[in-house]
């Protein structure tokens, strides 16, 4: 909220970056539902982000569907792929889960890259129309920030229900939670699909924000970027993931506009987050 108001006051390019930060915040929030609540690290959420982006972009550009319908299509497509990947990936744990989600992410990327007729292949999609409310970028920012807040509140509400609490309990003790009679496995799958949908929503917003997308968006690099945001935010907190996304987006913009050593700065930042003990504040 504070960031939004500050960006509105500064105006210009900051509005663009702030909108991007809010969009990535939604993406990281989606991933955090799996990482922070189920306790498994996914490296395939770039695919959900990209599927959301491509679906909404194609619907708006080639079919001329109203924007909200396009966003819903993006969310739906991402959830559909999540419903395919989730049950398979959730059979595994730990590093195997990381690698299965990575595999399905990369498979989606290659499939999309090869469907040249539909997606334009490696050249990507350009000329994606802006959202009608984003004609004035400042209004676009306010709307995006509102969507971010609504998603965050929705996720918090969801995790406070019996559904969310039992998934939380299962992260700490899986056999205990399922012995209490909760269908933990099925609920985890449902949460995975919701998570894919939230990240897909971010992707859909992203496509109209940048007006150009390419298959790289589905790659593990996007997944890795979202994951770093979640981890920097403490890995256990939904709001932390959002803060991580906002912080890193602004940091990246600040650094890349000055030097081409973003990787070096990012690496040093990641290590500093751990070494400074910032990550462990308030934990035993």
């Amino acid at each position, binding site marked *: 909220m504070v960031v939004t108001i500050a960006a509105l006051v500064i105006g210009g390019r900051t509005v663009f970056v702030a909108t991007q930060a809010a969009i990535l915040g939604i993406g990281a929030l989606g991933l955090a539902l799996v990482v922070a609540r189920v306790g498994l690290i996914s490296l395939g959420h770039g695919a959900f982000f990209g599927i959301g982006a491509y679906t909404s972009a194609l619907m708006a550009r080639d079919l001329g569907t109203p924007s909200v319908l396009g966003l819903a299509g993006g969310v739906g497509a991402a959830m559909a792929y999540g419903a395919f990947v989730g049950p398979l990936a959730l059979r595994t*744990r730990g590093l195997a889960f990381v690698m299965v989600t990575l595999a399905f992410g990369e498979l989606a990327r*290659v499939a999309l890259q090869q469907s040249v007729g539909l997606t334009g292949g490696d050249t990507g999609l350009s000329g994606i129309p802006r959202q009608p409310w984003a004609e004035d970028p400042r209004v676009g920012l306010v709307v995006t920030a509102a969507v971010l807040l609504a998603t965050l509140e929705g996720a918090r509400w969801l995790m406070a229900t019996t559904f969310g609490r039992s998934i939380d309990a299962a992260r700490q003790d899986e056999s205990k939670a399922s012995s209490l009679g909760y269908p933990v496995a099925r609920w985890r799958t449902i949460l995975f699909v919701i998570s894919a949908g939230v990240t897909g929503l971010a992707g859909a917003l992203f496509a109209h924000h940048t007006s150009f997308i390419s298959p790289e968006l589905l790659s593990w690099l996007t997944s890795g970027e979202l994951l770093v945001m979640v981890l920097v935010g403490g890995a256990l907190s939904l709001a932390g993931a959002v803060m991580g996304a906002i912080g890193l987006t602004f940091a990246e913009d600040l650094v890349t506009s000055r030097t081409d*050593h973003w*990787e070096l700065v990012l*690496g040093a930042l990641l290590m500093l987050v751990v070494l400074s003990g910032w990550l462990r504040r308030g934990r035993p």
Partner: protein
Amino acid sequence: MDLILLYALNGLSYASILYLVAVGLSLTYGLGRFLDLAHGGFYLLGAYLCLSLVDSVGFYGALVVAPLAVMVLAAGVERLVLRRYAGQHRAVEQMLLTFGLAFILSDLMRTVFGGRIRSLPAPELLAGTIDLGIASFPIYRLAVILVGLIVVMTIAIVLRRTRLGTMVRAAAADRSVAASLGIDTGRVLGTTYALGAGLAAFGGVIGAPIIATSTGLDFATLILALIVVVVAGAGSAGATFSSAILVGLFDSFGRALVPRLSVVALFLLLAVVLIMRPYGLFARRAPG
């Protein structure tokens, strides 16, 4: 027929390199659930050091110097930073630290060694091809297969017969029992980490004449090595070898038969194996 033999031999030479990178990754993960995301960086650093050293000390000199240099670097980072964050409950911190290290290495390598793609001719003694009766094949690649086999056997002997190997196996089997018997598991993990980094760099050196060295090869190699590790089931050097052969062959035949979709072949293999056998193809039991 002769084409199939060529693809198979190419796959096996690539498997040798993959094994060198994956074995350290697998052992440190098996020992302390410690996932080293900077491992691809150590591989690429080995390759770049080889390219820089080859004019002064020759390829065979680089084969010794580059892995040692990387080992010293890895040992230093492990001792100063990583060891303080050992333990399963600190997985997030370990991932952030090693991922951060990977980014720093990647950026520094791009700055120091430049962004262009560089290749290296096979070293003297091993240049040229050999006639295998039905096809001719580069001698250097056969030598790489041989080196891979020697390293596999050396590691098997070290793990079975030496004090360090026994401590590694004990710590991998049950860390708390091993610790209660007086084994400094932190040090065992540290030594394994440094040796594994050295082996990855060694793989980078012997890979330099085969695989063009460029920016981004570090993360690409890391992902392939991770595929080898999880297909094998982490923690076993022997299984890592079988798995490296499988992945190497899949990659080689994939590239030859479906060039545009070779990545798909590998990721399909990975997904199918893990869904059928969540703990890896060659693991006898679930990891603790």
